[in-house]
């Protein structure tokens, strides 16, 4: 059974551009969370979606947005990219939005030049 998958693996963008990152959760999981991991730090929570609704949002600017589709896959969008947005973007899935183990994908490495 496939784990959490993310695409693309790596991405290079220029300041001011926008980017869309994609995530497919583990089959049967209805909750998807997004995290940003800057080099040398722990992941920071961006969004959680459950059953296509936003259930939580971290301390990130409105340039960051996300959505979840009927098949529970998810997209993270970042507009007006800044150099500081360069990071590993991680997607995690879980069976419910409550307490419980989250399974992480391999991440998308975004570099903004």
């Amino acid at each position, binding site marked *: 059974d496939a784990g959490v998958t993310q695409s693309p693996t790596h991405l290079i963008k220029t300041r001011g551009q926008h980017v869309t990152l994609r995530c497919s959760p583990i089959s049967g999981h209805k909750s998807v969370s997004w995290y940003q*991991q800057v080099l*040398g730090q*722990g*992941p920071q929570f961006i969004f*959680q979606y459950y059953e296509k609704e936003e259930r*939580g949002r971290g301390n990130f600017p409105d340039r960051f947005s996300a959505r979840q589709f009927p098949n529970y896959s998810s997209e993270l969008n970042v507009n007006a990219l800044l150099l500081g947005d360069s990071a590993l973007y991680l997607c995690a899935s*879980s069976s419910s*939005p409550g307490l419980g183990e989250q399974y*992480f994908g*391999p991440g998308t490495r975004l570099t903004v030049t």
Partner: protein
Amino acid sequence: GESVGLHLPTLSVQEGDNSIINCAYSNSASDYFIWYKQESGKGPQFIIDIRSNMDKRQGQRVTVLLNKTVKHLSLQIAATQPGDSAVYFCAENSEGYSTLTFGKGTMLLVSP
């Protein structure tokens, strides 16, 4: 892949030793804690979890201890192996949903 461990606290041990990685968490209302292992170029991998109504939980070669009085979590790895070399993060659940707040991380280096 790029290292996730730049400027992190580092614990160096010999193969076969027991390792103890410590974590101080911030939110006294947190009621669920997880330890993750992250190898270079990969996403975090679940190791073990513990709920706040417990103070100890054991897995295969790993034990997590929770001290709610001083908001301290530790991960003990028995008979550490070179394959255990990675960055280890503790994470706490906040706000009732499965949003996790991660600690800074500790790099574990195991020499043969």
